[in-house]
């Protein structure tokens, strides 16, 4: 094989690779749009009246996830199934965002941390690499850390809206989450950097809880059985 023949063949391979990436990019763009719609929907819970609408918002969000499932199904078909990590960079960000959104919905519904398996189910993908298009553990953890920041914000806005018990529950949840993350031996990568932000979320929530406790507002909440306006 001549040098020029070799390079012609190589160029063919590179071009085919670029074509696949172009298709993947298109699919990811559609996913990003759906993620934006979900985020806009769920951001509404931070406003006062939004609290009453939480169950309705969660229901609507669940419907949006139907679209996500369809779009991910389509994405799966754009590349060979055994080359997930070859193209992973393209959808890593939007998948982390979707994990956060799923975790947020589950938290609003049940005040628990969505499991990896549950997120995979919501998104219509696998939890294990061996079974196909899956959720990487680091993407799951990144999404969960974004949830922590969102809940820190929610704690603040809950108080503003007159709900004095929610921040206490958020505090317990975040503390447990923080303890969980402390078990991990992280490397100096993007996950580690994101984890470093968790302590600021913890601090913010602690300050909210403190502000309530010195004013006796938390006692009011527990005595009244979570009574709020």
């Amino acid at each position, binding site marked *: 094989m001549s040098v*020029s023949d070799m390079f*012609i063949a*190589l160029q063919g391979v590179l071009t085919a690779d670029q074509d696949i990436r172009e298709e993947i990019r298109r699919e990811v763009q559609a996913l990003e749009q759906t993620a934006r719609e979900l985020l806009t929907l769920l951001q509404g819970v931070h406003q006062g009246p939004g609290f009453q609408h939480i169950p309705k918002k969660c229901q609507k969000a669940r419907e949006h996830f139907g679209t996500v499932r369809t779009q991910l199904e389509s994405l799966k078909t754009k590349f060979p199934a055994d080359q997930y990590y070859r193209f992973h960079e393209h959808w890593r960000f939007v998948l982390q965002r979707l994990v956060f959104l799923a975790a947020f919905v589950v938290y609003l519904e049940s005040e628990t941390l969505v499991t990896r398996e549950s997120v995979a189910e919501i998104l219509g993908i696998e939890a294990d690499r061996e079974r196909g298009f899956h959720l990487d553990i680091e993407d799951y953890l990144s999404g969960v850390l974004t949830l922590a920041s969102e809940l820190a914000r929610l704690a603040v806005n809950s108080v503003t809206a007159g709900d004095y018990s929610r921040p206490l529950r958020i505090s317990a949840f975040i503390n447990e*989450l923080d303890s969980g993350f402390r078990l991990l031996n992280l490397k100096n990568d993007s996950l580690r950097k994101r984890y470093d932000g968790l302590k600021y979320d913890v601090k913010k929530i602690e300050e909210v809880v403190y502000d309530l406790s010195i004013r006796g507002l938390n006692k009011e909440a527990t005595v009244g059985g979570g009574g709020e306006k």
Partner: protein
Amino acid sequence: GSGGFRKRKHDNFPHGQRREEKENVNPSSPLMTSFKSFQLELDTRHDKYERLVKLSRDITIESKRTIFLLHRFTSAPNGEEILNESEIKLDAVRRKIKQVAQELVGEDMYQFHRAISPGLQEYVEAVSFQYFIKTRSLISVEEINKQLIFTAEDREETTNMTSNSHDKQQHTWSLKVTPVDYLLGVADLTGELMRLCISSVGNGDIDTPFELSQFLRQIYDGFTFIGNTGPYEVSKKLYTLKQSLAKVENACYTLKVRGSEIPKHMLADVFSTKTELIDQEEGLS
């Protein structure tokens, strides 16, 4: 004012309360149990990545040494010896690559690609350098990958691998150098070929530079053809490649213009002066 209030607030911050809350976390709650398994999963992944990084470093070092060895090759009597020694060295490198292949059994190679890519590029550089010295042609990526199919050497090896259930049945392992790693290795090869050209003149070999010039031009044409259709790392190499080619072409020019008037043993001196001038010019531009 608010500044004073804030100061007081932090003095009285309930650290005791915070500690108490943390102690209230149940270590066997579902969440904590999941995170323990995440810890295990991440540690296992990181450990494998580190093992592969170490192997890649060994591959890089041994490949570089092979390249240095090959630079000592001349058509003089010890040439055959050097080629044989280089083959022994490259076999050692291939044994390391076999270990890489074994680590990657059942894994998605691309998950760990960044760990092993530098080593593989260096290996491509070394093996293609040796191939050029032997055959005056470019080794193909298929040819390289053919040499990276490994079988179990003896029964001991297969029984040693029982730690991983995948390996119980495994008797062959293989690693495929990716087209991109191949291209990057070949791009680096051109730098070594440029050095070979300079040293050839010093050895009184005035044929090799012209052969190299033709060969490098073919490779440069190939990279030009690919242009920007590859990943950024490939396009980045084009600049250095062009410089190496220019040095070789200038060497050929010098030989052509000045070669006939100067005795061979003095060529090296003339030539080194000229290359100094080239380097100075490039420094200014």
